[in-house]
């Protein structure tokens, strides 16, 4: 029996995706577990696998098609020797694929990750509105890449009909063309045009949204690193040379835990602002910005306050390498409650990051630098880094931000708490 392969929902928030690449050709023999396609969502590129053996019959949505709605038939699998229909009868429809491993991960970033707020939060509050549209309107929307949720229906009882989708495609939203926003002329001279990746679009959209809608403020503080670095040397000396128990803590691993502990001490910062209420998160899920060649992504060290440094180190290492290989699963970069962006390795003196909604704050970590500091009445040399907390003022006020930074500094400067 012919089976339609539907556009999978790769995350709870996914409503549409792009067919990045078909990995099978029409007529290919497919075994259970074979990767059929790569689907690019706003957050990641994922693979879909066959869950049955058969023949890859027909591609319904060509490679490169963007905005394909979840549950839209995208291909048809048939059995050996079976004729290939143009579309399978819906009665035989069953998702022949299961969304599986993340493929190349595309998304957001230091400041742009799209964490899914912990379950109880806003997801449940915003049920997806049912779109009433004719079958033909849906088909045309899929073909022409129109988001039906943006189309006003003029049919019986507001049903979206063909003419509505067609007028939506002939009158595109007043989106300024790239580079010519608000009519500003592009700089003159030679240039080349690089189409946006999905990740770049998401970064652009989410950061613009964050900066435009979140009232940011920034609090900086100098933190001495010598004690933490000394502890790090001692701990690393305990590691086996190799094997499963081998570890090599980085300063960043320790700062992840320090931030998590500070969040436990000042839980008001581990929050999300919503129109109706403040959501205070139980766990300190730390999103760690990882730069990629063409953007960045923020994999999450979950419940970092309750994990040992060794666990955090091993997890972070795995997350970073898989992020760079594009192999993160959605749950590995969705659902953080606080972000850290560390540019110390670039020798940055100080910087401020953009809040990664719906989180309330992000910590920007600059390079540690040996410099003279006044200690009592004496001048001594210490390794000092400047950290800057960017804060959503709707969720956290200045004094609270300062309290959190103090807590963070105290933990870093007296780091034994990290190994408790």
């Amino acid at each position, binding site marked *: 029996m012919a089976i339609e392969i539907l556009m999978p929902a790769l995350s709870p928030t996914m409503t549409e995706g792009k067919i990045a690449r078909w990995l099978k050709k029409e007529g290919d023999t497919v075994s259970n577990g074979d990767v059929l396609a790569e689907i690019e969502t706003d957050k990641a590129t994922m693979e879909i696998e066959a869950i049955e053996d058969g023949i890859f019959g027909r591609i319904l949505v060509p490679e490169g098609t963007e905005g394909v709605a979840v549950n839209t038939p995208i291909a048809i699998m048939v059995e050996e020797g079976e*004729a290939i*229909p*143009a*579309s399978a*009868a*819906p*009665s035989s429809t069953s998702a022949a694929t299961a969304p599986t491993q993340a493929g190349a991960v595309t998304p957001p970033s230091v400041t742009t990750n799209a964490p899914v707020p912990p379950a109880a939060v806003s997801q449940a509050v915003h049920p997806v509105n049912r779109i009433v549209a*004719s*079958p*033909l*309107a849906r*088909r*045309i929307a899929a*073909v022409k890449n129109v988001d039906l949720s943006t189309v006003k229906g*003029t049919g019986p009882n507001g049903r979206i*009909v*063909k003419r509505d989708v067609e007028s939506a495609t002939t009158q595109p939203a007043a989106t300024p063309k790239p580079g010519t926003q608000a009519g500003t002329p592009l700089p003159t001279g030679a240039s080349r045009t690089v189409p946006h990746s999905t990740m770049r679009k998401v970064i652009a959209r989410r950061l613009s949204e964050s900066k435009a809608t979140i009232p940011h403020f920034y609090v900086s503080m100098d933190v001495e690193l010598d004690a933490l670095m000394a502890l790090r040397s001692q701990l690393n000396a305990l590691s086996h040379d190799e094997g499963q128990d081998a570890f090599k803590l980085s300063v960043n691993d320790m700062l992840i835990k320090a931030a998590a502990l500070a969040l436990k001490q000042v839980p008001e910062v581990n929050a999300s602002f919503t129109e109706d209420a403040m959501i205070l998160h139980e766990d300190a899920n730390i999103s760690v910005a990882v730069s990629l060649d063409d953007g960045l992504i923020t994999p999450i060290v979950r419940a970092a306050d309750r994990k040992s440094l060794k666990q955090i180190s091993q997890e972070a290492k795995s997350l970073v390498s898989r992020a760079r290989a594009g192999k993160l699963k959605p749950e590995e970069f969705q659902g953080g409650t606080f972000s850290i962006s560390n540019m110390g390795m670039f020798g940055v003196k100080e910087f401020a990051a953009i809040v990664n909604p719906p989180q309330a704050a992000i910590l920007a970590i600059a390079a540690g630098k040996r410099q003279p500091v006044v200690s009592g009445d004496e001048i001594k040399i210490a390794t000092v880094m400047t950290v800057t907390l960017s804060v959503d003022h709707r969720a956290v006020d200045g004094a609270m931000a300062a309290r959190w930074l103090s807590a963070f500094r105290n933990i870093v400067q007296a780091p034994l708490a990290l190994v408790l």
Partner: protein
Amino acid sequence: MSQTDFDVIIIGGGPGGYVAALRAAQLKLSVAVVEARHLGGICLNWGCIPTKALLRASEINHLLHDLPAYGFKADGVSFDFKKIVARSRAVSKQLSAGVAHLLKKNKVPVFDGHGQLDGTLANGRRKVLVSKDGAAPTTLTAQHVILATGARARVLPGLEPDGQFIWSYKEALVPETMPKSLVVIGSGAIGTEFASFYRNMGADVTLVEVAERILPVEDVEISQLARKAFEKQGMRVLTGAKIGTLQKTATGVSIPVTVNGKTDTLLAERVISAVGIVGNVEKIGLEGTKIQIDRTHVVTDALCRTGEPGVYAIGDLAGAPWLAHKASHEAVMCVEAIAGRKVHPIDPTKIPGCTYCRPQIASVGYTEAKALEAGYKVRVGRFPLLANGKALAMGEPDGLIKTVFDAQTGELLGAHMIGAEVTEMIQGYVIARTGELTEAELVETIFPHPTISESMHEAVLAAYDGALHF
């Protein structure tokens, strides 16, 4: 003194006008109808309905002459032509009385007389004069006037109906006697139906068409199959014909007809001229108004508004397609707009057309050629009734169902049918087209077995996965 001021006055009581009146009454508008002749208009009195009554008779005549095929034997089968015509008239009379009853039930006054626009009052209300038999006209006033005066047969020079040898549809509906031979000029729905009726009643019929094929608005395959079927029934069909000067003889007419450079003089007792229609735009007060006329039809926008605010034109008067159901639908749309409701223009590609010849023909939407012309990439499905069990059981195996889909979106662009009962089945495709179903929903739909309508399903399958039974 009875009421003379209304929200809406409708001039013409045909399937456009009387439906407009009923809808207006439903919407609590005060409304009146002005009708000069018969309620129900041409459709009910001189068109759709009486021809169907005649065609029923010719179908029975056909079956009676085909009895041995079903295992029957009957001798001395004959008919009384006067009674057949009388039955047709009785049906029209009954329905016309039904329309009068419906209007009465809805408390819509009907003014018996000729209605015409007569300028406006100082308060902007429009005046309508109703005149009858030269008596002093009655003046009515209304905020809105809907013109629904319909159309009549086009008369070509040399083919003027003479009440004797040369007929228009009117004379063809009420003949004194059955003509032994007949020439029908024009193979649109009207000409084709009369040709089919008289042929099935036993007349020698020649159907003459100027265009390259009969039923020129239908899909070309349907035209071809219709021609084949007619010729099998013994009808002579001439297409691409040039018609010369008609001569009257003592017993009929002679018409020289040239096809492919070869001229043949057709001799017949009667000739029916069915070469199109013209709108009834005269004497309804359009002169000196901003209402424009284009080739005998009133120019309107998509919502039936004319150049004069508050004046509307619907139905045949407002142009093609000249179909009663189009007139009725425009009537409802026009009145609802007057009542302040939100309406949408009628999409001509969603108006079905039916021709009740034997075999019947029905279609909706784009023909394959028109779809290609419009730039669609199409998928076409065909299913012959020869492969349909019910059609065979009924002894009606001649026919074809053809579907035309947009290959990109699965939209049913058009459907074209020829065969038994197809005029009763086309609505299935019209619903699909109006409800914007794609091939997927049609494929999924379960059609009852055994019916001729199963062929509609198969014709969809044929455009995609392939028909199951052919």
